C-alpha cells in the first residue's frame, strides 16, 4: 500500500473523530435534565372538582353515544336470544304467574286491596321492580364489562350505566304492554288516577340512577361484589312491597315514612297500586319522604361516581 493512500486513510480517521464528537454533541443537545424533586409540587396535584353543571353539559354532549351504547346492548342481547324481544315479557309474566299461584292459594293478600285482582296487583309491582333490579345488575356491571372501551377513549364514564338503564327502560316498556292484555282478561279497568304516573316515576328513576351509578363505580374497585349482587336483588324483593302491599307489614304512618326513606321504591310501588288499581291519590307524606331520599341518593351516587371515576383506568 502506498504512502499516499496511507496518509489519506489517517486523514479520514482524523475527520471521523471530529464527526463522532459532533454526533455526541448532537445527542447531548437533545438531552433533557432529570427532574429535581422526587414528588410533584403540592400546587399541581390533581384535584377532582365535580361541577354538576359541567358534568351535565358534558353528558348532553355525549347523548348520541348513550343512544349508540344502549342500542348496541339491545342488539347484542336480542341477537343472542332465540326468543328475542319476548324475553322482556317472559320474566315478569312468569314471576307474576308464580307469585299469583303462591299468594292466592297459600296466603291471601286480597283482603288488603279488596276488589283488585292479585294478577294485576303483582304485575304492576313486578314491572318496576324488574326494571330496578335489572338496572342494578346490568348497569352495575356496565363499567367492568366495557373496560375495553374505557381504556381507549375518553367519554364521561356515566354513559355506560345510563345506557344500561335505557335498555332496562326499553324492556320495562315492552313488559308494560302486557297490561293491555291483562286488564281485559281480568275484566278490570285502570282508574283515571293513572295521571299520577309521571309523579311516581320521579323517585323511581332517581333512586335507580343513584343506586346504579354507585354500584357500577364501586364494583370496579371491588370485583367480588358482583357475586353479592344477585343476593342483594333477592333480598330486595322481600324488603320491597313488590308482591305484598305495605299494609301487610305496617299501618303506622311514621314507620311507613321511615321505610320510604330507606327504600324509595316503597311509595312508588304503593302509589302505582293506589292510583292505577284503586283510584286513590298516592300517600303524600311517604311519597315526599321517598322522593327527597331518592334525590339525595342520586346526588350522593353521582358525586361518588365522579370521584371514583378518575381511578377507573388505573385499576381496570
Amino acid at each position, binding site marked *: 500500500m502506498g504512502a499516499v493512500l496511507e496518509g489519506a486513510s489517517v486523514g479520514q480517521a482524523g475527520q471521523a473523530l471530529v464527526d463522532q464528537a459532533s454526533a455526541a454533541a448532537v445527542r447531548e443537545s437533545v438531552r433533557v435534565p*432529570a*427532574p429535581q424533586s422526587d414528588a410533584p409540587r403540592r400546587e399541581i396535584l390533581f384535584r377532582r372538582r365535580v361541577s354538576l353543571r359541567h358534568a351535565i353539559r358534558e353528558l348532553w354532549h355525549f347523548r348520541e353515544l348513550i343512544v349508540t351504547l344502549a342500542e*348496541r346492548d339491545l342488539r347484542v342481547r336480542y341477537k343472542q336470544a332465540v326468543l328475542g324481544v319476548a324475553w322482556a315479557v317472559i320474566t315478569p309474566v312468569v314471576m307474576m304467574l308464580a307469585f299469583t299461584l303462591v299468594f292466592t292459594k297459600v296466603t291471601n293478600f286480597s283482603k288488603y286491596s279488596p276488589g283488585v285482582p292479585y294478577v294485576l296487583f303483582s304485575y304492576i309491582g313486578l314491572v318496576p321492580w324488574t326494571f330496578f333490579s335489572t338496572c342494578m345488575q346490568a348497569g352495575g356491571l356496565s363499567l367492568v364489562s366495557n373496560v375495553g372501551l374505557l381504556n381507549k377513549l375518553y367519554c364521561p364514564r356515566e354513559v355506560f350505566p345510563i345506557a344500561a338503564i335505557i335498555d332496562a327502560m326499553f324492556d320495562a316498556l315492552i313488559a308494560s304492554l302486557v297490561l293491555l292484555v291483562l286488564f281485559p282478561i281480568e275484566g278490570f279497568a285502570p282508574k283515571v288516577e293513572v295521571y299520577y304516573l309521571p309523579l311516581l316515576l320521579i323517585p323511581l328513576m332517581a333512586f335507580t340512577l343513584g343506586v346504579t351509578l354507585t354500584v357500577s363505580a364501586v364494583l370496579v374497585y371491588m370485583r367480588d361484589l358482583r357475586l353479592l349482587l344477585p343476593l342483594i336483588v333477592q333480598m330486595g324483593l322481600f324488603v320491597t312491597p313488590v308482591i305484598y302491599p305495605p299494609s301487610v307489614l305496617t299501618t303506622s304512618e311514621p314507620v311507613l315514612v321511615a321505610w320510604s326513606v330507606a327504600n324509595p321504591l316503597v311509595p312508588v310501588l304503593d302509589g302505582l297500586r293506589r292510583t292505577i288499581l284503586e283510584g286513590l291519590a298516592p300517600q303524600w307524606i311517604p311519597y315526599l319522604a321517598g322522593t327527597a331520599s331518592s334525590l339525595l341518593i342520586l346526588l350522593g351516587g353521582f358525586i361518588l361516581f365522579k370521584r371514583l371515576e378518575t381511578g377507573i383506568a388505573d385499576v381496570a
Partner: protein
Amino acid sequence: MSAPPVGTIEATEVWKRFRSDDRPSYLQDQLARARDRVRGRSRPSYRWALREIDLRAAPGESWALVGANGAGKSTLLKILSRVMYPTAGEVRVAGRVGALIEVRAGISPLLTGRENVFLTGSIMGLKRRDVAKRFDEIVTFAELEHAIDRQVKYYSSGMQMRLGFGVAAFLEPDVLLVDEVLAVGDAIFQQRCLDRIRTVLAEGATLMFVSHDLAAVEASCANGVWIHNGVIQAMGPVRDVLAAYRAAVEGEAADSRPDIEGLLKVRDVHASAPDGGLPSTGGPLSVSFSLHAEQRHRAWVYLGVSEGAATPIFLINPGRETTLEPGETQVQCEVQSLPLPSGRYYLWGGIYENWTNGNELIGWQPLTHFDVYGPELDAAPRAVVRLSPLHVESSWEIGQAA
C-alpha cells in the same frame, strides 16, 4: 386562558403514580388494606410511573415516543387520551382524539363490523352522518367488503385489526395516538397503516407514535421523545433523539457482559481499519480477537454487525469449520468493503460446534463496538421503513428518452 388551536397536545408537569402493592381488586383485599391502615401497620406504597413530563405538540406535528418496556410510554398515551388521570399536572388535548391503542379491545365481538364502525365513531364524538360519510373508505381500507355485516367474532384477528385501525384512522382525528399497533398484522398491512398515518398527518392531524420499531418511527415522525423510567431523557428532532436512545441502549447491551466466556474465552477484541484508525464507508474493516480453549474443539465462528440489537445488519463466517487446539488461537478477519454509513455499530459474535445448529461454545453476544466515518444515511421517503442502514454506491442517468 384561551383555548389552544385544535390538534394541540399540551402536558405540563405531569406526574403519575400507581399503587405498587399488587393486591387484586377484591373486597377482601380492600378490607385487608383498610385494616392494615387502621392498625398503622403499612402505609400504601406507590411507584412513580411518570415524573415531570413536559410536552408540547403543535397541530400537525408528528412525535415519536420511544423507550424500553415499562418506561411509561403507554401510560403517557393513556393520559393524553384522557382515559387515565394524572396524579399531578395538567393535560390539554384540543380536538377529536383517534386512539390506536389496543386496537381490537374496543370492538364488540357480538356486533357486526358495520355496527362497530358507528359505535367507535360515536365514542370519538362523531355524528352518525359523519361516520356514514367515511364508511365506504373504512370498509375499502380494511378489505371487509364481504364481511362488514358479519359479526366481528367470526372475523380473523387480522380482520379485526384492520377494522380497528380503519375506524380510528379514517374518522378524521385531530390528534392520532398510536401505540405499538404495527407489531400485529403482516408486512403489507403494516406498510398500508404507515401510509395511512402519513395521510392523516398530511391532513393536518397531530401524531403521537409509540413503537419499538425504530425504523418505522423514524420514517413517520419528525420529532422524538425518549422516556426512561418515567422521565423524559431526550426530546427534539427524531434522528437525534433516536441516536441518543440507541447509544444508551447499545452501551447498556455492550456493557452488560464484560467477560466473554463460554466453553471458550474471548480476549482482545479489536475492530478497526487495518491501520488501526476508524473504518470508513466503503473501506476495509479489520477484526481480530484471540480464543482460549481448554480442550480441542471443532468450531464455526460467526460475526455480525448491528446497530445494537441482536439482529445483525449482515453476518460473516469463514465458510468452513475451524479446529481449535487447546491454548490460544488468534482469529483475524477482514471485511474488504464496509457497506455502512456513518454511525456507531456493534460487533456481535458467536461460536458453535456445528454448522447452523450446534452447541454454543460462545453464545451470540456483543463483542465490541466501532464508529464508521462516511456519508450520512440517506433519508427514506416518508412512511417507507428501511430494514437495515446500508450504504450502497450507485450511479444514475436520468434524461429525456430519445
